[in-house]
């Protein structure tokens, strides 16, 4: 065997490696190693990438937009809430249902701009502290959360306790003489509409940027 250790030529032929081709710079051993490594990585990628996509897929799938009729317009009053149970996720049985409190728009207290989606005010029962179900107490005209003592006033704005923003609302509209409840939206302390956020996510100040909206659920564009 010729001594190849001191010969630093890039060409294998110059280094007297047996069976070298002219102009060849990569030894067969290196070529074999690289091929095996690349094959390995392709095989691993073929398993990992689809699995990862499968697990992360729901993060990009939009929740189906549902409109559910809940009664005639004259069933609701501007000064008191009536509860209705609607389905917010299909195919999840009882757990896909949620309670919503409804009343007609009262121009004396509802000062946010009027449009076709807020002729009826639909308040979500999801507490904006950590998501427990709030209950409307007619005697005090407040929403009260049983878990950590969150209190909201008649408009759903925070009056006390740990919640970070007013109660979420749902879009409402009237179709064929029936009031329908649509998708959820979140509001900041000025009752401006935002894409739905999870509880405990502040929407005032830089909150809306710290807690970005997600591809899975958005407000109706332009509202």
């Amino acid at each position: 065997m010729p001594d190849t250790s001191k010969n630093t030529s890039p060409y294998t032929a110059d280094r007297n490696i047996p069976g070298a081709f002219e102009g060849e710079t990569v030894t067969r051993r290196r070529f074999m190693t690289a091929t095996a490594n690349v094959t390995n990585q392709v095989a691993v990628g073929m398993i990992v990438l689809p699995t990862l996509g499968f697990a992360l897929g729901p993060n990009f799938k939009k929740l189906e937009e549902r409109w559910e009729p809940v009664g005639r317009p004259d069933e609701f009053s501007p000064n008191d809430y009536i509860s209705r149970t609607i389905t917010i996720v299909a195919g999840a049985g009882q757990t896909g249902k949620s309670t919503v409190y409804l009343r007609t728009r009262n121009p004396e207290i509802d000062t946010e701009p009027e449009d076709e989606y807020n002729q009826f005010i639909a308040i979500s029962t999801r507490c904006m502290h950590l998501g427990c179900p709030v209950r409307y107490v007619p005697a005090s005209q407040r929403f009260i959360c049983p878990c950590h003592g969150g209190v909201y006033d008649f408009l759903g704005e925070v009056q006390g306790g740990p919640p970070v923003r007013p109660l979420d609302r749902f879009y409402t509209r009237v179709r064929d003489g029936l009031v329908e409840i649509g998708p959820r939206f979140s509001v900041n302390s000025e009752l401006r509409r935002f894409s739905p956020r999870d509880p405990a996510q502040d929407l005032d100040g830089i909150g809306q940027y710290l807690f970005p909206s997600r591809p899975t659920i958005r407000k109706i564009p332009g509202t």
Partner: protein
Amino acid sequence: MALKLPAVPAGAPARPGTPAAEPKSVKDNAGEAAVAALGWLDERTAISGTARWVMFRKVPKGTNWFYTLGTSTMLAFLSQVITGVFLAMYYDPSPNNAYESMRHINNEVFLGQFVHGMHRWGATTMVIFIFLHMGRTFFFGAYKYPRELNWVIGVILVLLTMIMALTGYLLPWDQRSYWATAVGVNVFASAPIAGPYLGDFLRAGPEFGATTLSRFYAIHMLLLPGLIGGLIAAHLYLVIKHGTTAPPWIEAEIDEDLRKAEA
């Protein structure tokens, strides 16, 4: 080249004074059979050296009952694995049947309530033990050089145990588990920037749905047990490699003569 060895002389007389061979008892035979079986295994795996390395270790002076907390945690985990496997034979992780299958386990399956109870209380036990073990390690200073990596592995095990507890809590699918998990996921989701997406990942969407339960179930019974088992193996390997520490109140013994001689 074949070796030529001298032949053994045939019919060599027994040495005088050798006691006559007694017929072997059943006990002797059983003992020989066990040794033969172990010998067969050892010859093919060389396991006895490893077994001695694992089991016959020197422990420092002052080793006490506090040193059993790690083993207790591991036994709690093994108990969870065993009871969990049997609960999985009856449990159905679908939103319409999960509660019903838990009711079936508790009310109708023979010893079902007992096994469910073992799993439920075992989970609490494991969380308590793992924190006591962590406290022991901290207060005895057993996390110091060269054992830092083992401390890090231990902390990961604590986190995995907590995620195990969170995901397992949802599975009974009753009011308490549903709302407690809703709160738990919202706690995760309240982290800035990544939080909202993490919440969507855990729930498999913006709302609790059918996929949420099966996702928690898969994480609880497939993903985490494997990870925890592997990390426990690494944790134990390092414990055996390093040996255990003496309690901090044990003073190092100083040989005064040697000290003077070296001074």
